[in-house]
């Protein structure tokens, strides 16, 4: 049984959503990957901040 799939069965609303699998959840707290995302998100935010001032 895959842990992430259990919640699909908990109610009808959950059943119609997308739930991240093991790999997607791993990436969310993988320090190396998140360090890269940290830089990317910061650049994107700086662009939006610059466009807003």
């Amino acid at each position, binding site marked *: 049984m895959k842990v992430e799939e259990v919640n699909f069965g908990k109610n009808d609303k959950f059943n119609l959503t997308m739930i991240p699998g093991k790999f997607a959840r791993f990436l*969310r707290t993988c320090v190396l990957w998140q360090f890269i995302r940290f830089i990317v998100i*910061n650049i994107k935010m700086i662009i939006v901040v610059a466009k*807003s001032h």
Partner: protein
Amino acid sequence: MARLVVMGGGVAGHTTATFAKKWLGNDHEVVVVTPNSNWNWIPSNIWVGIGQMKKEDVVFPLAPVYAKAGIDYRQAKAVSIHPEGKEGSDKPFITIEYTGQGKEGQTEELEYDYLVNATGPKLNFDATPGLGDGNGQIGPHTVSVCTADHAVHANSELRRIFEKAKTEKQKILVGTGHGLCTCQGAAFEYIFNIEHEAKKAGVRDNLEIKWISNEAFLGDFGMGGLHMKVGGYVVSSKLFAESLYAERGVDWIIGAHVSKVEEGKLDYELLDGTTGTEEFDFAMLIPPFAGVGLKAYAKDGSDITDKLFAPNGFMKVDADYTPKPYEEWKASDWPRKYQNPDYSNIFAAGIAFAPPHIISKPAKSPNGTPINPTPPRTGMPSGIIGKAVAESVCSLIKDGENAHIHEISMAEMGAACVASAGKGIFDGQAAAMTVYPVVPDFEKYPGTGRDTDYTFGEIGLAGHWIKHILHYLFIYKAKLKPGWTLIPE
């Protein structure tokens, strides 16, 4: 020498006052009237509400900061505005009532040349029976994280529930306490921080955690939702929000107007007109917001409050307030100068200005109850507007008639939002989002109303790091430490 009076020392007012003082120097006076002795970085109240930060981590005293900056600080609340002066004097003034500085309860008239209203929201708990105590404060049945003190109380109640959950089932309800609430983002952060803490405390299995809100769909956030590019698709925030709730096992009730709160239970009405009751052991419900209730008087003493303020108590500015159907709403309805149309020396910044209409699609139940989020004015827009207003006032003071009034519309401005979904340097997560523009412009961006190159969102540890860094950065900036002007709003 001109005098600028800023009412409200929160995100917008503090930004206006500190920039105005920096640009005006000692040639002109800047006065801040605000009832609070501390400045509060409100977004971090969420972490106080789960016991991961102390109140002292999110507040600092305003007096030494204003003394250093040369700003005249009055710990008082503004009561009324007299834009035409009074009999015998044309000089406009406000009346204030002290709440500190050893003058509690004393009233005073304070003359101004320019006035900025940055008084933020009144937390209107009493709009829902049982949510308030009948005297404008939060009632005994629910908790809140809207102020640092509320958050301290919320955490002590939460810990009591966690303790009970070691041996018995407990039910937690988080969301909005009225059909016309905004600030769903704060409730969103709180529910997922609770969920994260519950797992850490080993009590998650004994907790039923449920969301209740006035959004027509999850992920509306009072902005009508947002569309973002992911994996080659452009998708609605609804998909992402529902995914997160399902992943974390958090059930939801949406399109709900909470109509009554009692000990351990609340009644609600849904968009389809049906009603229901939900029981809880712990509930954090955001109250609806209103203006703080300032009054306005003409020279002859007659009441002109409805000339300066919209019925919800927020100040009228250069927006198009003509009532019109949703299909006719335009980006150009939103204000650009934040200047009162009748009194050009009065401005409003942050939550205090009256929006022309909501952003989400309006909705009513068949019984006629309006159930839709009111528009958010989050930290970034509040700060940017606060700074723009400071620029306009400084320009008016220095250049008089030829002054350049700074223009910035929420329909041309983006917002960066980081919604915490659990605190921890290595296991924390947050949804990092940017929205551009905040108010959708369907003429410029047909379809989604926003530029999907600059509207994005993703959840992960990186978002948490950013949220944590922003906490220190904004408190550093608000304390006017070296280089503070380099940190953007």
